[in-house]
């Protein structure tokens, strides 16, 4: 349905973006592989490196197990209690950790689970002397559950919401006891999702950087990502950075390969909070246990947020807001976020258009088809090579050309744009596909092209998904510490870096204040993005 010129523009755009992204990643990897690090007289993979690998897999495995195992009963309880007070807000609450910068979440968790946090103070008061430690493995697990339990729960809940309402009426009418409901209705609905969700959570935990950096507690609790960062920033030991990076790529590649074999868990925005009428949650025992479970989960998710708020409002905002470095950081952060988001969107749109052009050609040859598949896998390629590896490679590449910190803003923008790409693609490509399906024939038939088509036909429909993608990509970039940490210097101060450095230098009150501002900024963006999406859904009924 496209004109020849449109198709050719599509191919060309796809080629440029594909080449750009591939080069950006490949150059970094090549730079790593061929960096002459001198003879260190050490095997490439020594005991330390293997232990890091082991710990990375161990913590990711345990985090996944805990997140999913706890998310399942929570999702079941929330699905069973459609009239639970504030249920819709609880489900919205579970979207918060997704939009919360990881560093800020870690701060909140320390406020609750730290030695002097609320929980341990409470435990000490009732005479428990051995406190829960937020550092090391237990801390990493708590934090990973904090971030991933809501994600898993939303996906599971979406699966339960997709069940036909007749199932609940049938179960009630047949008098199925709760175990039968679980066995015959709920479990079959969630079981096919579990593997995909577990894969996603495992991937997120295996590549976790900021949490491990903040809560790790030394070489015993270090993941590959953090070890790569340390081997470069702490040791300047490129040889070790290379062996760790290779392991990291091997890990992400195997996880991605496994995930490709699993069914995808579907859209996480699907958990709308709307729910079918249930007739089995009414007994007082069910209400009691579901209620306890939901309340505990809400406390677990809410308290760290409250702690951020409480600690944050104590800060001297009059002073903080007049600090030049704060405004410089806001300025830098917002520019970087906006640029990264725009590049990400532009790349995503180009890929989508290129794939449409390829699909549109009358007889797509093998080349066209494989190019289309390559374009589709581009966002996975970004996941395959973690930001810290890309950063390390570019660091080594650019070093001979002067001070790396000069290139830092550009690299951070590019890395953030890459990181956001898979998410942007996930928002945009279904929206574009549906829109094309609905309008392409008519528009072509009426001869509406170019700017008119954009203004009258494309933008009015696509502006909502575009805004969602933009705000989400911006929030992701605003909250990012990883790329900035690698290059961070006094010339490149972003808000998360400001928080992190204030934390390091005693100024916890300032850190708390900045953390609150950053959290509000990111949550505001996420809410703005998802609100638009909700409207769109309602529109469609």
């Amino acid at each position, binding site marked *: 349905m496209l004109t020849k010129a449109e198709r050719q523009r599509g191919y060309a755009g796809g080629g440029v973006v594909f080449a750009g992204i591939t080069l950006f990643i490949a150059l970094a990897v090549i730079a790593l592989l061929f960096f002459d690090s001198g003879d260190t007289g050490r095997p490439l993979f*020594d005991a330390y490196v293997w232990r890091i690998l082991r710990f990375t897999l161990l913590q990711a495995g345990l985090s996944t197990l805990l997140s999913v195992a706890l998310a399942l009963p929570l999702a079941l309880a929330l699905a069973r209690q459609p009239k639970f007070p504030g249920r819709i807000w609880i489900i919205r609450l579970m979207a918060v950790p997704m939009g919360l910068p990881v560093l800020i979440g870690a701060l909140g968790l320390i406020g609750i689970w730290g030695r002097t946090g609320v929980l341990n103070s409470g435990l000490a008061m009732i005479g428990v002397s051995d406190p829960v430690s937020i550092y090391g493995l237990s801390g990493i697990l708590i934090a990973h559950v904090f971030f991933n339990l809501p994600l898993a729960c939303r996906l599971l809940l979406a699966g339960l919401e997709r069940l036909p309402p007749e199932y609940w009426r049938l179960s009630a009418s047949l008098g199925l006891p709760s175990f039968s409901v679980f066995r015959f209705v709920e479990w079959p609905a969630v079981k096919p999702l579990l593997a995909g969700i577990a894969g996603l959570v495992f991937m997120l935990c295996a590549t976790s950087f900021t949490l491990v950096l903040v809560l790790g507690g030394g070489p015993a609790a270090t993941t590959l990502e953090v070890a790569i960062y340390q081997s470069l920033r702490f040791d300047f030991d490129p040889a070790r950075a290379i062996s760790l990076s290779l392991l990291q790529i091997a890990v992400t590649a195997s996880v991605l390969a496994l995930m490709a074999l699993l069914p995808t868990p579907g859209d996480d925005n699907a958990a709308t909070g709307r729910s079918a009428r249930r007739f089995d949650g009414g007994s007082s025992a069910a209400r009691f246990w579901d209620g306890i479970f939901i309340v505990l989960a809400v406390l677990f998710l809410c308290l760290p947020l409250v702690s951020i708020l409480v600690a944050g409002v104590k800060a001297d905002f009059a002073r903080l807001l007049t600090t030049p470095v704060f405004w410089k950081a806001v300025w830098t952060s917002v520019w970087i976020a906006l640029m990264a988001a725009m590049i990400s969107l*532009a790349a995503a749109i180009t890929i989508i258009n290129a794939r449409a052009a390829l699909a549109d050609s009358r007889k797509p040859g093998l080349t066209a088809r494989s190019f289309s598949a390559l374009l589709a896998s581009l966002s996975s390629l970004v996941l395959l090579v973690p930001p810290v590896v890309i950063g390390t490679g570019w660091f080594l590449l650019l070093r001979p050309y002067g001070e790396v910190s000069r290139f830092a803003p550009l690299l951070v923008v590019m890395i953030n744009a890459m990181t956001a790409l898979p998410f942007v693609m996930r928002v945009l490509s279904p929206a574009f596909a549906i829109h094309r399906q609905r309008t392409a024939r008519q528009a072509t038939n009426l001869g509406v092209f170019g700017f008119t088509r954009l203004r009258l036909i494309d933008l009015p429909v696509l502006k909502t998904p575009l805004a969602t993608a933009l705000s989400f990509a911006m929030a992701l970039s605003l909250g990012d510490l990883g790329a900035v940490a690698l290059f961070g210097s006094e010339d490149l101060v972003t808000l998360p870096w400001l928080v992190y450095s204030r934390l390091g230098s005693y100024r916890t009150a300032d850190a708390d204040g900045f953390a609150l501002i950053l959290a509000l900024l990111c949550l505001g963006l996420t809410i703005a993005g998802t609100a638009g999406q909700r409207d769109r859904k309602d529109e469609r009924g």
Partner: protein
Amino acid sequence: MRKRIFSLAAVLTAALSFALPAHAQEKKTLTVYTYESFVAEWGPGPKVKAAFEKTCDCTVNFVAVADGVALLTRLKLEGAGTKADIALGLDTNLVKEAIDTGLFDKSGVDTAKLTVPGGYQDDIFVPYDYGHFAVVYDTQTLKNPPKSLKELVEGDPSQKIVIQDPRTSTPGLGLLLWVKSVYGDKAPEAWAQLKKRVLTVTPGWSEAYGMFTKGEVPMVLSYTTSPAYHMVEDKSDRYQAAAFSEGHYIQIEVAGLLKNTPNRELAQKFLSFMVTPAFQDEIATTNWMMPVTATDKPLPDAFDKLVKPSKTFLMDPAQVANNRRAWIDEWLAAMSLN
């Protein structure tokens, strides 16, 4: 739409490249790389800056990294292209490695008259203060502090300590060498045992000490002089250093001049300034270390109450340079045991 977004991105790129750098360059700027606690509001940085800027028509620009070892790493990373004119905050354990980088040049400062334990002498690096590493503890939560390194290593694992990473921090490296000095070949076993007491390992001294004063942990690796800060500033005896029977490892902090500095004269002037009373006066009461030369102001009385080490350890810089990487690998291996 695609085109529009690309052109928009191009405009933004241009805007960003204008927005980010742009520094005013009227006065000469002396760039000093140092560690975080030096430039903290309560540290010596602000006062030293003010004092030196009075004597020169220049601006002192401190650039802080987590700690002293990270400072050397940063310089290695940046290589000859570094912006630093002066590196302030290495210690004698690192000087051999620092000299071997070829990035440093002779200071031109006469260090003969300085009083440094062990009489450290060097024509490249200027020592500006010293102190003994010590475990500082909270008397309110720790009733039986360790009396030796051996007791620290073998003590109750539920009583935690926070230490610094030897890959980034000079105290962290100091502890590594301290343990090596006392345990020799048995150091890996000692670390494997001490690991059970380590709550967390921070990249720099500031973070560790911050956690300690917030009450997250009852012990921290710091200096024998740290309690003086609390006695003078907080009027409190709550935090004390533990005297270890084996003796204490000493740290002598030094500063050096970068070979490629465009501000050589100014940098030399700053290095000379560091061993004058104007700078040394600030050391005792803001960096909370021992001055290396006479000061105008007497030391606060609190300094008399501090732990006096029975024996001082200090390794030969060449020995450290030759073995640092191997010992750090040893440490990593021991500390990554699960």
